[in-house]
């Protein structure tokens, strides 16, 4: 009996030492690390969130009650929760502007321009910065100084250099959301540009050469060569943009705290969870957000499949 197990063990070790064994071992070991991290920090919390959304519970997790679909019912009957999605429209429109601008800059940077790498670096830099830092920069950028506790912000200082009057950017409910969208575009556009540059550079130079011979101008080259070649990337970017628009958080949270009509769904979720101690309801909100993003992704995929 004992001898048999030793024999089995030895064959296992032998198999592991062989080529196929090594191949599987390496694959499994390499995959294990990301999988463990994924399960531990994404899947388990996500499943917990799903469970919490059917409970009435506070932050400490004591005296948990099962309430079935009550949280969802409240979410869809009390308009104060879903109405915060309205502000996502600003960011959605902003993200279309952002995509167009990114595509334009990427096309420019792929042409025969000097110092393109410097520009790439400058444009990508904001994306590498911490979102909190970016938000604090823009809080200062849009500041209206009173000369007593604080001085004029960057934007007003520049305007005043040209003789204009300083503006209360964040206090005016009509423009505050555009200011926040501007900050959001500034932060994320670098990533889009790099994605587009990567896609554009993968287009074979032969095609450009042929187009040149046929006498195509820059616009025609963009419309008939570049855009069709990078359509999958555009599709991906649009999905990311919509996902970003419905889940905006740190920029409005830090710059305005959601005041003055700038609150978003995620800010509302955080407040529900941590100011009003309704972890169950907040989990339900997070589940709804997840569902919305899944639906958007599905629609997008179906739409772009058809066009192929």
């Amino acid at each position, binding site marked *: 009996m004992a001898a048999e197990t030793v024999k089995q063990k030895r064959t296992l070790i032998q198999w592991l030492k062989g080529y196929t064994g090594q191949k599987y071992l390496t694959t499994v070991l390499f995959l294990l690390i990301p999988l463990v*991290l994924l399960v531990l920090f994404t899947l388990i919390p996500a499943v917990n969130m799903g469970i919490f959304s059917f409970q009435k519970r506070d932050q*400490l997790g004591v005296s948990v009650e099962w309430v079935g679909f009550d949280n969802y019912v409240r979410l869809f009957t009390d308009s104060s929760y879903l109405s915060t999605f309205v502000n996502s429209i600003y960011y959605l429109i902003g993200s279309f502007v952002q995509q167009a601008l990114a595509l334009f800059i990427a096309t420019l940077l792929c042409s025969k321009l000097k110092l393109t790498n410097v520009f790439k670096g400058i444009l990508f830099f904001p994306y590498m910065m911490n979102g909190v830092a970016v938000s604090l920069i823009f809080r200062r950028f849009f500041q209206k100084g009173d000369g*007593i506790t604080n001085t004029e912000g960057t934007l007003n200082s520049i305007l005043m250099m040209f003789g204009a009057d300083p503006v209360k950017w964040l206090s005016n409910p009509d423009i505050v959301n555009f200011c926040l969208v501007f900050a959001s575009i500034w932060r994320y556009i670098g990533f889009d540009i790099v994605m587009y540059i990567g896609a554009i550079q993968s287009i074979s130079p032969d095609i450009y050469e042929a187009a040149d011979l046929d006498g195509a101008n820059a616009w025609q080259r963009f419309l008939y060569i570049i855009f069709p070649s990078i359509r999958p990337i555009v599709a991906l970017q649009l999905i990311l943009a919509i996902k970003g628009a419905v889940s905006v958080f740190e920029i409005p949270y830090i710059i305005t705290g959601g*005041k003055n*009509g*700038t*609150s978003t769904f995620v800010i509302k979720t955080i*407040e529900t969870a941590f100011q*009003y101690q309704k972890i169950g309801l907040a989990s339900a909100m997070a589940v709804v957000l997840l569902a919305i993003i899944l639906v958007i992704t599905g629609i997008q995929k179906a739409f772009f499949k058809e066009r192929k």
Partner: protein
Amino acid sequence: MKFRKLIAGFVAASTVLSLAACSGNTTSSTPNSNSSTANNSTADNSTADNSTADNSSTDNSTASGEKLTLTVLTHRTDRKDDGSLAEMTKSFEEANNCTVVYQAFTDYSTDVPTMMNTTDYGDVLMIPDTVKLEDLSNFFEPLGTYDELSEKYMWADKKMYDNTVYGIAHLGTIAGGICYNKRVWAEAGVTELPKTPDEFVADLKLIADKTDAIPYYTNFADASWTLVQWAALVNSASGSKSYETDILTSQRDLFVPGDAYYEVYKLMFDIFKDPSLHEEDPMTSDWEGCKKAINDGKIATMVMGSWAVSQFKEAGENPDDIGYMPAPFNVGGKQYAESTADYCLGVNKNRSDEIKELGKKYITWFVEESGFAQKEGSVSALKGSPMPDYLTDFADCEFFVTDTAPEGLVGVWDAINNDSEVGTWQGDAANFKIQIAEAAFAGEGEDKFESILADANAKWNATRDANADFKAYLEANG
């Protein structure tokens, strides 16, 4: 070949390490976690040392081997960073042969409740207000009965359930006061402090006309907590020890004209709606900057608890200019001021008896001997301690401590407040305080103010009438 083996070995090792780290993380949430057993074992080892140390002189005790380590969680990052907490604690460490380690949290009220999902939340800590009174026993060691402790300490009922006290206030404040710059108010010609909201607004207008100072600084950029300061005026304005309980039992609206809740926020609306009375752009106000400005006399007034007085005094060269006045409300000509407990110190119940004993000693020492409350210019929880000297303006004012909610209504106010999301003590973006301020800044009229409060009343009443505990209370008490 050797190189490949090396790589394979490295990968295997790192995997095992990362797995070990992960499994370490997951087990730490079970009651018998690694760290707590580690704590227990050090505690057991030092038992003998400690008992001898207590009897003998302190010189001996420093020479004897292992010391107990007491971890204290605090929200006072400022006092940890400037070293004054450690400095102050030296006498306690020497007397009890232990080491006290302070862990300070900038965002105490959200970080610590999250930690409390495990058993690892320090040995002694400021009890977060998110812990419901009925849940206190799940987390904290009883410190004694109410009858016992209330003789010695103020606010002993703040963290009490079923007559058992789980926390003692590390300091207390005089709520319902307003910080102001005495020099500016005097320059404007104000000789007598206002006793009504109308007088208060009139005085602010005087300041606007006669001085260069900003009459009132809203701090609206940090509204999530700065506007909440206004909520502290309510009880004082009512002058009643049982104001909130009375609102519940009489089943009336939260906001009724002529009543404290309504009048406090009416005052806020009246100040905020007049652009000459506050800073130019409230959305970009600056909390750190305003401290120096009120010290320099560039800001005249702010509604802040008494805890802010010492910070305003320290911020510049004119500490004597900072004053603290009673809320401009009166009941039959008499002004009242509520004294309330700040965070209460409690002992983690998941620790060894050794640590728990030391934790209780620490709390006693902190409240009675450390002098922390006096240094902060606050009221000590120890009865009979001298009142801070900036309270001279409160000479004609009557101090009171709010009564405990009657049996059956404990926690009901908070439950209704949270469920309805009216949020008397919250400052979320949809909160009535923020809405009132935004309406005032936008120049909207009284009708908007009334409609915001009507909404809040409706939400409050609906939630109250659906609250099971409240129904039970009504049935039991007719």
